[in-house]
């Protein structure tokens, strides 16, 4: 009986949610016919600041402060994950007969890794730097750049990545990315009208040099997001991939 209880509660709650939820959704105006007063104003403001990509204008310009909060959530989550997954001494002893080996990787996979690595880096950089002009931006580009590092992991081995990580480069990048965003915001306080205010000339719309500080913010976000992603995946890798010592050598 006790084991059935969650299921019964779940079914009852789900049914109630289904009835009320679907009634609420039915009362919404039909999809595609919803009026967008905020959207229109957001687009007008994006043009006022010479930003071609209205979505980036909303995230970084109009709601720049919210995005700072979002970045700090990401930073906190990355720190929490890294802390939770640190290796304890007892664990290291238990795992002593294992090590991080260059497990067996197919030559084909290695080749694909080598070929795609520069392409991924190029695409990532493009997505970050053109965020204010075309779909993309710091978050998307940061993820692409981070996945490039994992292609390097496939093409080379864990030790290469480990060396990168222990060099403290990633932790520094993670901190610098978050700091960069705040620093650009503070510069707005000094040179402009307030925190995160645009203090650079906005340039011409659809030009690479447009949108004021937004490209700079995109770069700092890309650094932070990319570093966070690499740090978290590296921690999970460290926990998951151990091979018996003899197999590794």
């Amino acid at each position, binding site marked *: 009986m006790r084991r059935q209880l969650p299921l019964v509660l779940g079914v009852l709650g789900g049914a109630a949610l289904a009835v009320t939820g679907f009634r609420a959704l039915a009362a919404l105006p039909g999809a595609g016919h919803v009026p967008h007063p905020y959207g229109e104003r957001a687009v007008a403001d994006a043009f006022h600041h010479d930003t071609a*990509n209205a*979505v*980036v204008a909303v995230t970084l310009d109009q709601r720049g402060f919210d995005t700072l909060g979002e970045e700090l959530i990401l930073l906190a989550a990355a720190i929490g994950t890294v802390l939770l997954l640190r290796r304890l001494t007892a664990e290291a002893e238990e795992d002593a007969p294992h090590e991080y080996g260059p497990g067996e990787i197919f030559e084909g996979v290695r080749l694909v890794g080598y070929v795609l690595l520069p392409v991924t880096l190029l695409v990532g950089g493009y997505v970050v730097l053109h965020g204010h002009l075309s779909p*993309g931006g710091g978050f*998307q580009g940061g*993820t692409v750049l*981070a996945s490039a590092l994992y292609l390097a992991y496939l093409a080379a081995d864990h030790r290469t990545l480990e060396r990168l990580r222990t060099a403290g480069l990633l932790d520094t990048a993670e901190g610098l990315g978050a700091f960069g965003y705040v620093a650009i915001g503070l510069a707005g306080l000094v040179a402009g009208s307030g925190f995160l205010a645009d203090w650079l000339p906005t340039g011409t719309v659809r030009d690479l040099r447009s949108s004021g500080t937004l490209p700079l913010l995109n770069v700092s976000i890309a650094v932070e997001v990319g570093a966070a992603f690499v740090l978290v995946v590296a921690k*999970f890798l460290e926990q*998951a991939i151990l091979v018996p010592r003899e197999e590794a050598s």
Partner: protein
Amino acid sequence: MNAWILGVLLVLTAVTATAVVLTRDPGRQAAVLSAYGLVLGMTMLALAAPDVALSQIGVGTAAVPLIVVLAIARCERATNRSRERGDRSEPR
């Protein structure tokens, strides 16, 4: 024409989401989750949101399934070791 594509993609999204939930083996689920991420990304593209689609495909198709697979590998090692030691608490 565009409406047709959107309709088909939406139905496909519902089907793949259900498939993810009904796949009980976590290892297989990670693969289905990756497929769902891709379908969801396509649906976002059809809903005129390329920015969102780009980050959904980066995060939902690559990053999250990757850490899911790694977490499963680690969990399995831990539960196997605990079973070997025989200190696993019996369900009641």
